[in-house]
């Protein structure tokens, strides 16, 4: 069984870090996993994304043509990746920054006001981790516990003071009431 994920947003929203946490969670769940970033002339405020492929066997490839799950933290990412979602796949979108429009009938949409929820938590920088909570709930591909463990392992020692807030963000995302889509 192989699943692939793209996490995308503005440079500065922490999509590469969110991807690293997700990849670490799969590693802790004993899956084979590859994380691959978009890299090039990227800059703060531009678009950035990373792809995570998790598999029970050897990872088949990166840079795949289609994907099971997209996490779009802004409108540009929503527009860019909508067509890449596999039939039956998921568009998980930040409805604070992307319009709730459903143009494809063959995929599942999950809209959550990720940025707003992070602001309510008190730190907009938590949006990326909060999005992982939403993804975990919608995808059922990884558990909240595995993501929590991954967060603990990814945060360096001098940032460990931020762990409680990150765990809270993860939980808020996970517990966000997903509207029937």
């Amino acid at each position, binding site marked *: 069984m192989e699943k692939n994920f793209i996490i995308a947003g503005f440079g500065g929203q922490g999509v590469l870090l969110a991807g690293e946490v997700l990849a670490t969670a799969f590693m802790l769940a004993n899956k084979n996993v590859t994380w691959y970033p978009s890299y*090039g002339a990227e800059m703060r405020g531009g678009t950035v994304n990373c792809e995570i492929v998790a598999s029970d066997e050897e990872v088949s490839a990166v840079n795949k043509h289609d994907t099971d799950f997209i996490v779009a933290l802004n409108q540009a990412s929503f527009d860019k990746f909508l067509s890449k979602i596999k039939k039956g796949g998921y568009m998980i979108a930040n409805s604070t920054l992307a319009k709730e429009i459903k143009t494809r009938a063959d995929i599942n949409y999950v809209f959550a006001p990720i940025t707003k929820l992070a602001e309510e938590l008190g730190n907009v920088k938590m949006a990326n981790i909060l999005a992982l909570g939403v993804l975990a709930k919608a995808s059922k591909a990884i558990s909240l516990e595995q993501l929590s463990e991954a967060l603990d392992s990814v945060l360096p020692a001098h940032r460990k003071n931020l762990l409680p807030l990150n765990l809270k963000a993860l939980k808020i995302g996970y517990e966000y009431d997903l509207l029937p889509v």
Partner: protein
Amino acid sequence: MITEDITNKKVLSKGNYAIAKASILAGCDCYFGYPITPQSEIGEYMSGKMQELGRAYVSAESELAAISMTLGACSTGVKAMTSSSSCAVALMQETLSYATADELPLVLISVMRGGPGLGNIYPSQGDYFQATKGGGNGDYKLIVLAPSNVQECVDLTYKAFHLAHKYRNPTVLLADGLLGQMMEPVEFKPYPYAEIDNSDWALTGAKNRKSRVIRSYAPLADNQCKFVEKLFEKYKTIEENETEWEEMGTEDADIILVSFGSTSRNVKTAMKLCREKGLKVGFFRPITLFPFPNKRLNELASKVKKFITVEVNMGQMINDVKLAVNGKASVELIHKAVGAPPSPEEIQSQVEELI
């Protein structure tokens, strides 16, 4: 003794950091470098860690300086390395030729990007010729190792230091932007090779012994002739002892896909897709590009109809496959000039077209 990076459990690591950590665990005493994407993380990691460990890190003024400093350090018998990418490795060719003639255990990490010229920073395999045929002068060979995942970035970095010192020959780890930038779970086991005694040649100061000279200059014609012949005897030994490859599904194959490095990941998947369709397709991956697995490919050529090399360049390794096969089977090419490798599905459909 460094223990902090040695762990029995897997950690998620970028290819470039994995190479840097493995170099430190292999006992690298000196790093000399000049930054270039997509391998700058190697120098970044070394700049902090080497100083912490009391080892040498020099941010050189140019690539020519970086590899020349590496050559100088190697002559004293220490483990020294540099790392770079395509257009900057091009600048290092002169010193690579000198290091083979000086028989110095220089380690070069080459993380390929798009070329020719400045090209771009995306992955590529366009430097197969650069690594295996070289741009330096004279008859020489570099040992070339090609990892295909992040774990192999560690294991083959260890091996690069080992082989460089075992044979006193410059050794290249040929990775690419895809491997350098991706993260995968990886295990850092302790350096598995025994240390090699170099007390009979290293320049350590001629106290209580005769002085030594390391040079690549033989003014008398006969001397140079003998020297080059001796070098090639060494290369023959390396071929006999160190040739390494991976093969899968070759027992009953009609067609064998040949690929190295990061591209081979997609090729292996393409081979499985072909098998699902009932096509008898096998997979062959040279891990050492020099020594190239000529003998094994030639054996396989007696049993199969066709080889197809898959490369991200305009067709470079295909020449070596043709030489190895020596007319016993046809050899075709699936390729892309620069960038991420063709997808398994693209490779599969092109294989079907070529049948």
